[in-house]
């Protein structure tokens, strides 16, 4: 755990999910699991977020929103897709308005499967994302030092 970022701030966006996954995401923040003990803060502000956690598939209406949120986040950043909807489109895959999973518009790093994904799985996904975030932060710092 030594080399892991201690301060991952998380932005949760609900695509076209059925809300099942969202409830599980919020459950991860409740006293039972308490994600804040890992330093996780659930922020609503893309400019301050490190991890973009997305639930639900992408449709015609939210694809620009998702792209914009992603662009507003400062580097380094990590994207986690929670639930099969966000991974592939899930049960809604064949709907006329669904484009597919989150990776149809933005690069996704970590996929958390499940319908709905369980809080344990979500926290596990976030912990992996935190590791990746730290790796990118180190790379980012090395790059900055090289430029300086």
């Amino acid at each position, binding site marked *: 755990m030594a080399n892991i970022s*201690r301060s991952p701030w998380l932005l949760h966006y609900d695509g076209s999910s059925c809300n099942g996954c969202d409830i599980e995401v919020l459950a991860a923040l409740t*006293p039972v699991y308490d994600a*804040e003990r890992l*330093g996780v803060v*659930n922020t*609503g502000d893309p*400019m*301050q977020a490190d991890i973009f956690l997305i639930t639900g598939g992408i449709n015609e209406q939210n694809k620009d929103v998702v792209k914009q949120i992603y662009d507003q986040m*400062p580097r380094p950043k990590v994207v986690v897709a929670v639930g099969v909807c966000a991974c592939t489109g899930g049960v809604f895959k064949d709907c006329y308005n669904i484009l597919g999973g989150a990776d149809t518009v933005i690069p996704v790093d970590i996929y958390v499967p499940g319908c709905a994904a369980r809080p344990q799985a979500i926290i596990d996904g976030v912990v992996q994302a935190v590791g990746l975030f730290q790796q990118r932060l180190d790379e980012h710092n090395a790059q900055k030092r090289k430029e300086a």
Partner: protein
Amino acid sequence: MKLGITYMLLYIVLAPFIGGFLEGLDRKISARMQRRVGPPVLQPFYDVKKLLNKQTITVSTSQMFLLITYFVLMVLTGALFFFGADLLMCFFVMSTAATFLYFAAVVTSSPYSSAGAQRELIQMMAYEPAVLLTCVGFYLAAGSFNVSDIAKSQMSNIAFLPGFFVAFVFILTIKMRKSPFDTSASHHMHQELVKGLTTEMGSRNLAIFQITEWYENVFLMGVVGLFIINRNPISIVVAIAVILLVYFLEILIDNSSARMKWQQMLKITWAVTLLAAGVNLIMLMVIR
């Protein structure tokens, strides 16, 4: 004079650490109140370190300048206070600092940030009377506006100023951005304003804001201590105990109350200020 400079330097060097540590305790105790484990006590420092390392996204070029001015003025406020300068002056510099924070938020022209800034102004309107009355109270009790003179009083000033103390602790909730009154920038997530005042502050700017808050909190706690401190060195220990108690009270209020509308905030704050500080003021004037 020499002692004043030592205190001032100590404040400038130590305040961010004390402030950050107090915030860490705050988050831990809050978590315990909600029956959670909570983050480590050093969490605020991890947060700031990360924020400083991230890519800087600048929404508006002047925002950084305005925030740094806010930071410098806030440090100056505390420095003047611990140097032992004029208390009125300290509070005026603090208000100037707050104005720069307002500008730093509106300059981005984001609706959330601007609305947060508007509310910040309303908050200032709510707490300023109590702040000014506190200065007047200290003058009436100790016969001087100078912090160094007030700290050398015969008796703890709280003996003369209980009403002022109540009013000041009441507005501390606003100044520390705690729950019933944290209308301008919420530390609890997902509110109607996103992050209010700080919505458009990314990475480095947010870190500056955070550190400034720590300086500010230590200064405010210093004012709380000024109520207690007197000639006797033992009073310093008592002052620290009272400060910790007040801080705990703020955390308790934060965790046990829901947010208020600004109209209610204004009404209640002014009522408390007028009743507690006003009555105390009249009594002081009658006695003297």
